[in-house]
């Protein structure tokens, strides 16, 4: 891949398997009087996929918004690549955000732009790639991988919910981020597409040594993508382990997620 002009450094410099890329300790967050995150602790290692399970409204989205600095934790420490996010200057935060991909639950496509322009946006505005052929190639490649090439010149308003989700995913992965935070990547998709997306997440992890946090309710997605699963309830992580470990758990809340799985 001709990536000379891209200012994202090759990610095999430090291929140390045990390097912790995200370290969250005792993070708390309230809105007004409502405490959403009570005590969050998590270590994400390089190249690892961690799946977060949890009921609706437990604060999963809030937790990953804190990681990219869109929300500020009230207390606790949240380090990415060893640096405290809350203490970063604007330009440091920007540099960090370039290395983190974020898939919004809603897809968050720019609705005044076509799918192509949506995907070009991070390439031209953030990575500042000057070469049009290179941009076209990467846009087509990313859309191909989510199976959306035929919708390249459509506006988001002309896409179905699932297509928007996939376009959002393509826009997230197109910059080859080192860390990807997926907020419900398969919600609203049919089982076949869900499975393809789950496998795509796995492929990205293997190919780019990406570390990911994947929020999902889709147990099939969790089974395919997870190296490790944490279960969140009421602002805390209450259980942690591999898919098989948690499958055997006696905890009522954990068991409720696995009840339909034989």
């Amino acid at each position, binding site marked *: 891949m001709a990536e000379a002009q891209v200012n994202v450094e090759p990610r095999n410099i430090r291929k140390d398997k045990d390097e912790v890329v995200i370290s969250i300790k005792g993070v708390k967050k309230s*809105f007004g009087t409502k405490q959403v995150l009570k005590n969050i602790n998590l270590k994400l290692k390089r190249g690892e996929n961690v799946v977060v399970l949890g009921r609706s409204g437990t604060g999963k989205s809030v937790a990953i918004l804190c990681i990219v600095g869109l929300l500020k934790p009230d207390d606790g420490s949240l380090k990415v690549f060893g640096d405290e996010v809350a203490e970063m200057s604007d330009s440091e935060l920007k540099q960090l*955000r370039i290395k*983190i991909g974020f898939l*919004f639950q809603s897809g*968050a496509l*720019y*609705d005044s732009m076509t799918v192509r322009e949506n995907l070009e946006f991070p390439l031209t*505005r*953030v990575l500042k790639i000057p070469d049009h052929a290179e941009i076209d190639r990467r846009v087509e490649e990313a859309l191909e991988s989510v199976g959306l090439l035929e919708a390249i010149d459509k506006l988001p308003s002309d896409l179905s919910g699932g297509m928007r989700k996939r376009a959002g995913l393509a826009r997230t992965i197109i910059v080859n981020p080192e860390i990807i935070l997926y907020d419900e990547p398969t919600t609203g998709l049919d089982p076949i597409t869900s499975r393809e997306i789950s496998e795509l997440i796995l492929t990205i992890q293997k190919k780019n040594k990406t570390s990911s946090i994947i929020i999902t309710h889709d147990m099939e997605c969790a089974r395919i993508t997870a190296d490790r699963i944490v279960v969140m309830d009421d602002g805390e992580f209450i259980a942690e382990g591999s898919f098989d470990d948690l499958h055997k758990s006696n905890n009522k809340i954990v068991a409720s997620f696995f009840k339909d799985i034989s």
Partner: protein
Amino acid sequence: MAEEVIMPGWKRWLEDIGDQVGFFFKFLKNIFVGGFEWSEFVRQCYEIGYRSMMLVGITSFIMGIVLILQLRPTLVSFGAASMLPRTLSVSFIREIGPVVIALICAGKIASSIGAELGSMKVTEQLDAMEVSGANPLQYLVVTRILATTFMVPLLSVIGDAIGLFGGFLALNIRDSISFSLYFTKVIGALDFTDFLPAFVKTIFFGFAIGFVGCYKGFHSNKGTESVGIAANSAVVTASLWIFVIDAIAVQITSLLFYK
């Protein structure tokens, strides 16, 4: 990022002022960070000009006609019918044209900017842009504010011309006056101290329209009803600003020019 905290009204008002000042400095800073978004700026200028041209043209034309018809009886009773073109041009260029056109633009442009950015906020597009490492202030806000600052004065000049033309047609209903005579009278009545302060004023009007629209959109709450609130309060606030700026402008102009 709206964090719902219940505060007394005056405190929230003060905080809002503080936020606006902060937003203004962010805007200034982002004009000069590298890579000005020329294509987005040009697109916005086109959109703003194109969207408002018709409306500004029609209202100015009608204003010109109506003013002549309203002024005529009074001036005729003083035997000063020949003063009509002069009266129209001075009142239109100095005050009525800029203010009415700016109010129309506030209704048309500030609301659409407020609604557009407000809906981008609600659907997390602003967050997405920020999280991707791009700069929504530079891409969305700087371009829109500069576009209105640039286009509103232009629309005013065009509107003034159309308004004066409307006046010419209205004059010809009762009296008959040749276009060249009318034109000479209108231009002769004006000098630099009529035109320049009015023009400078429209630059500020344009800035206020873009700034208020962007601020209201950017700072709207999450939830679909906030889009309407953002659009609505953008119009109200921008209109208020137009009158405040107008009041300040007349003080400054009379200090400087009309002794």
